[in-house]
């Protein structure tokens, strides 16, 4: 277990290094000049040149990258070009908002997905099963921004139940969390259904039924814990994907998280921030996968021996 963990940690660090290298090359090789953006339209060539030197952009790409890595291992993500602030500070300030949204979104997702998935599995082949699975398919195919705009139109603009945008109260979280939840629930419902069907067909469930246990007790105490593994794994992967995927929802709802930070930075070619957010997202993806893999043996002892 310890060696496995050590191996995975080394692997994770290498992957993170690779992500940093690719992002770095992409950002600096592309035809966007941050010095030009910063200097403004009317700046002279001399001013642009000075800014370029000041930011260290006149150095060769490799030495720039090594310099960046040297700072990175000390936890220094560099300074924002436009805002003149430490990137780490900017991200840390935005992280609570994104984490709140993530927790609320995943809660809605799992709640809806599990409930409908289990109900569908118990009614396998019936009308309820078909309706649930069809809805799950629609949810999986729906574009996030359209759902976000529709929820805004119905529940904020027309009914006035929730605020249009912003951050701070519970009411502000509801619509963004619903947007993420409605879309993600489809995946969970499909997965929960097939996992439950697998488990419900097994002998121990039949034994539990034969013992005369109530239907609800069989499902919740005997079948569900055995079907939960793929769902836990999925939550881990979800947490990772989440960070990179919040740009759209945060843009529509004016949610002040790292997605919004990234979106503003992209428009200003503020490379240190883009690097910082990309690395934070990659880190989240790696940690999410790692956590999913590590939790699996705790839930299911059969995996431990491998």
């Amino acid at each position, binding site marked *: 277990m310890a060696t496995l963990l050590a191996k995975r940690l080394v692997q994770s660090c290498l992957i993170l290094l690779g992500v940093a290298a690719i992002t770095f090359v992409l950002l600096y090789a592309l035809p966007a000049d941050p010095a030009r953006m910063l200097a403004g339209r009317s700046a002279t060539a001399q001013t642009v040149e000075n800014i370029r030197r000041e930011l260290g952009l006149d150095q060769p790409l490799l030495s720039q990258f090594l310099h960046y890595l040297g700072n990175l291992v000390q936890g220094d993500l560099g300074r924002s070009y436009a805002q003149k602030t430490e990137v780490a500070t900017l991200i840390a300030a935005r992280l609570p908002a994104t984490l709140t949204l993530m927790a609320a979104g995943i809660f809605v997702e799992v709640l809806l997905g599990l409930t409908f998935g289990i109900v569908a599995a118990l009614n396998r082949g019936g009308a309820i099963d078909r309706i649930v699975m069809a809805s799950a398919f629609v949810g999986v*195919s*729906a574009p996030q921004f*359209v759902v976000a*705009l529709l929820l805004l*139109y119905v529940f904020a603009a027309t009914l006035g139940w929730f605020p249009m945008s912003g951050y701070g109260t519970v009411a502000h979280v509801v619509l963004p969390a619903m947007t993420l939840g409605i879309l993600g629930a489809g995946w969970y419902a499909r997965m929960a259904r097939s996992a439950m069907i697998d488990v419900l067909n097994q002998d121990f469930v039949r034994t539990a039924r034969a013992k005369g246990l109530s239907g609800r007790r069989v499902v919740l105490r005997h079948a569900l814990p055995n079907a939960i593994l793929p769902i836990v794994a999925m939550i881990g992967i979800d947490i990772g994907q989440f960070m990179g995927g919040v740009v759209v929802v945060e843009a529509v709802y004016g949610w002040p998280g790292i997605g919004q930070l990234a979106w503003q930075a992209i428009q200003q070619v503020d490379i240190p921030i883009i690097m910082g957010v990309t690395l934070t997202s990659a880190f989240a*993806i790696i940690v999410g996968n790692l956590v999913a893999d590590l939790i699996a043996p705790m839930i299911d002892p059969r995996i431990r021996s491998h």
Partner: protein
Amino acid sequence: MRVLKELCRQPAAVFGLVIVLAVVFAAIAAPWLAPYAPDNQMFDGLTLEGAPMPPGEQFALGTDTLGRDLLSRLLYGARTSLIIGLVANGIAVAIGLFVGVTAGYMRGWVGGLLMRFTDLMMAFPALLLAIVLAAILKPSLWIVAMVIALVNWVQVARIVYTETRGLVERDFIMAERALGAGNARIVLLHVLPHLLPTAIVWGTLGIATTVLLEATLSFLGIGVQPPQPSWGNIIFESQSYFQAAPWLVFFPGAVILLTALAFNLVGDALRDILDPTQRGRG
């Protein structure tokens, strides 16, 4: 033919297939179907106050903020979506097949290196990467297709890799090799044909992802650029107006949803038919 027959036995797949064919027809026949030119800013396309016209007799789905006919723009938008869907996905499946087959067939350090690179790409926040690339490169239809392909090949590569490794172990490949067949011959004549179903299934499912991704990029203003109509940029252009003219979000949104749903339904049914081990699950 067998596949098509089996496809027609599933109501959901038939529903999907009908919509797919409708979108293809709309894309091809847009010039004849569209009641107006898609970029014609009509004087009578706006109300006296200069607001967009709601759906009515003259404009079936209403007009946008510049007085252009929404129905015509949606029909031409089908072209944009399908072109990007086919190009981006074609490239993604091709890269995925190449990387997956090479890694699965070669093993050794080449295979190891390719799969480590694929692992690396899996850790990349895909949507963020697409947004960064699309924003920094000058956006155009082809750039959007490239960006989407660059993000979407990874999943195909992983699946193809696993399948290829299974295939290489099979007796008929061993027999070919024992008979002295070269690598190129084995891959082209024996490995690739067996991967065709996988490529078809993921190619179909991938179009759904692509349509959604293109719409998202265009919605953010970094995808297909107006005046060229795309379902995403129609919403982008009118989102600040959507309280007064909800049809400008509702109709394009419905079209995006239906198209993605249709490709997902067909792809899922194809997977059931072409890969019997998956049957009855999910």
